[in-house]
């Protein structure tokens, strides 16, 4: 069974290895350039100082760094697709088997279908786990310079570090398998998995993740600027929402602001608006998730995805053994 499993997955494994090699090369080259620049520009030593140093000496360095490498950072957002692409490669041999009914041959050899399920689905899930582990390790190293400056809480960094990349990998595979077992057509199943995966990831990222815990609120000090940022929210914290409050602490909506400071003549005038807001004594507030909640958030999100993956695998196994003959 081990030989057969390997043989059936050979083509896709080679394809996946080629894909990973290309991406790996890209990440190694850019990663090495970034880490050396990060060291040579003296950013690393800078960020270990006090907050006051940070503002005046580090931020210019930091923006120089982002000017140089920021584009890479946004390019890497595309790699959010990698788990689902790898999942497709891992699961396609099984999907083909569901489509062609080849499993009927195997199930009428001397091996029970429970063992078949354990080997075939087990192999794919173990591979997904190992790939997830590799993925998070490479990306944690690659993102090191970015995260040292901007923290790990923002979506662009959060999704590639900690434990969630492994969970994404497992959910992707489980999703593709479930779709394949139910639809029994490879291409529609792959499409369906993709159609479900993207809204799922985006939904959790934007709607759920900001609320894993009640965000903290910071209000700007009336007497002026605090070190680092106007509200004292750290560079590594994740600002979820921001806006203005009046002297009594009431939050103002966009319309409130426009009513207080009507745009004169219709032309937008940011400087004028800012002056008007200041003149009314309004203060800036920010709701944020502090950087030290990183692991807590990672574990919550990992748990969500793992339970999803477990549910989908259970559904797949049930469907295969009960419905698919």
């Amino acid at each position, binding site marked *: 069974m081990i030989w057969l499993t390997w043989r*059936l997955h050979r083509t896709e494994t080679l394809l996946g290895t080629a894909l990973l090699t290309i991406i790996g090369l890209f990440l190694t080259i850019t990663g090495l350039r970034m880490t050396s620049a990060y060291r040579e520009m003296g950013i690393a030593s800078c960020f270990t100082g006090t907050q006051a140093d940070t503002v005046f000496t580090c931020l210019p360095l930091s923006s120089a760094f982002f000017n140089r490498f920021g584009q890479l950072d946004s390019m890497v957002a595309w790699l959010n697709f990698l788990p689902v692409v790898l999942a497709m490669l891992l699961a396609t041999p099984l999907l*083909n*088997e569901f489509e062609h009914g*080849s*499993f009927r*041959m195997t199930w*009428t050899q001397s091996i029970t*279908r429970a063992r078949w399920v354990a080997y075939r689905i087990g192999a794919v899930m173990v591979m997904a786990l190992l790939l997830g582990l590799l993925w998070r390790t490479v990306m944690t190293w690659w993102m090191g310079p970015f995260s040292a400056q901007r923290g790990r809480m923002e979506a662009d960094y959060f999704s590639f570090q900690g434990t969630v990349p492994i969970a994404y990998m497992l959910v992707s595979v489980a999703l593709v398998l479930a779709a394949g077992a139910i639809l029994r057509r490879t291409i529609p199943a792959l499409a369906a998995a993709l159609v479900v995966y993207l809204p799922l990831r985006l939904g959790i990222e934007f709607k759920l993740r900001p609320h894993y815990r009640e965000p903290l609120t910071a209000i700007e000090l009336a007497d002026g600027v605090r070190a680092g940022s106007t509200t004292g929210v750290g560079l590594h914290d994740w600002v979820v929402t921001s806006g203005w409050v009046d002297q009594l602490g009431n939050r103002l909506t966009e319309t409130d602001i426009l009513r207080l400071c009507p745009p004169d003549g219709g032309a937008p005038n940011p400087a004028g608006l800012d002056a008007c807001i200041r003149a009314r004594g309004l203060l800036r507030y920010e709701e944020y998730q502090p950087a030290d909640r990183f692991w807590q958030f990672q574990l919550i999100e990992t748990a969500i995805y793992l339970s999803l993956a477990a549910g989908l695998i259970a559904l797949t196994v049930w469907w295969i053994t009960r419905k698919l*003959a």
Partner: protein
Amino acid sequence: MTLALHADHLGKRYGRTWALRDCTLDLPAGRVAALIGPNGAGQSTLLNLAVGLADPSAGTVAVFGLSPRGDAAAVLPKIGFVGQDRPLYPGLTVAETMRAGLMLNPRWDADYAADRMRRLGIPLDRKVGKLSGGQHSQVALVMALAKRPELMILDEPVAALDPLARREFLQTLMEAVAADGMTVLLSSHIVGDLERICDHLILMAEGEVQFAGELDRFGTSYRLLVGPRAEPARVARVHHVVHERHTDRQTTLLVRANGHVYDACWDVREVGFEEIVLGYLDRGRRDAAQAWDARAREEASA
């Protein structure tokens, strides 16, 4: 007498339709049994239940006294199965397919498999997906036979083959039967083949078993009655009318006779295997057509 296959009020339902209903039959070990019936009479379902690919919705099925689903680990090595679509892995070569057989079975006769492939002239390095229909079927058959099964189950294995490939296929099967004395259950529509190789018959129609027993007994109990046009009511009181055909002047009845037919207005004739089977098949089709009509009428009146 050991029973290779025993079904007791076996039924299978897919959604709300019964694919097989109340099927009770015994297949003694050592027989080569033909399973015949009109399309959709439940043969495939019965065979899938026998190899454990499907789970019964009602009743029980046993292979050598064991449940194909419950005792799968014990039953599977005893059975060889060639499914309707002769499933194999199209991306594997013939040699790799045989290797899979070796890995998947405790009793795998690699010499037999290699010998068969050589004698059939099937190239070992060719991908299964690139084989001709006949070669593909042979590979599927050898995959099942090299397990050295005690019960071979074949679901319309020759339906898509040309006559020569069909003959070669059945030859491979019959050689194995002669050598091993295994039990065979073979469903097919090709009545001539079945008559030649089988000694046992299971006839299914309308999801039920119409006849199950030795082939020799089958022919002798049927008669063809030819007479002037008449309703078969009187005959039907004594004998089981399988099929009736009427022209303007003449009525032809196929009956399973209960003893002699004494009615003098009928000309009683012997009837061949194929005619009997066709009679059942046609009846199945008519019943299906009637069921459709009845349903259409019901829906129209509703």
